[in-house]
């Protein structure tokens, strides 16, 4: 699946998107997998309360299943307007 990062999450991870191929059940499993990879992911995902997640471009939550999901995006709370 495609994993996208925006705003300071993108800056901490150091890239805007990447492809992750793994058998994962939930968003939280993906977060754990990333955290185990490298320190920059640990920093980006240090506090999940300041992060939002979208699955296939719809706002979701960290307990949501990843079944049939093609695009996951992580970003801080939105500041439009």
């Amino acid at each position, binding site marked *: 699946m495609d994993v996208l990062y925006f705003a300071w999450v993108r800056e901490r991870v150091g890239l805007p998107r990447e492809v992750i191929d793994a058998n994962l059940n939930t968003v939280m499993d993906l977060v754990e997998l990333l955290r185990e990879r490298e320190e920059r992911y640990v920093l980006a995902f240090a506090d999940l309360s300041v992060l939002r997640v979208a699955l296939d471009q719809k706002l979701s939550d960290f307990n949501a299943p990843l079944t049939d999901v093609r695009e996951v995006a992580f*970003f801080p709370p939105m500041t*439009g307007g």
Partner: protein
Amino acid sequence: MRVVVQEAPFDLGKEVEKFAGGRTLSGAIVTFTGVVRDVNGGLQAMEIEHYSGMTETALLEIATKAESRWSLEDCLVIHRYGNLVLGDMIMMVATAARHRKDAFEAAEYLMDYLKSRAPFWKREVTHNGSGWVASLEDDETALSRW
């Protein structure tokens, strides 16, 4: 209903004229425009990042909800992204309704939702460097009134 996400500036006068012109059913047209302002002194520019694709979907969803909740003849949302400078117009909403209460309330609803439910992120550039604008607790609280 029209939702536009663009990098280029928009012409407020032309947009309002186009939106308001020729209407015979709406007795009330409300417009709101958001402008890059200097909060603490020293703001030079604002960079707006967005999630292309999701932004358009989210704005359409918000506008559709506004149209189903209030008696609107039409509504318009224009939101920019990219590099903006002090005084630039960031976004605008317009609503057309038979009565002003619907037009005002729907415009406020659109504003409240697109502040914290449309995937835009603002970054302020000042003399001392730059930083991401933090979301406000108030923005979240504002949604609870709807």
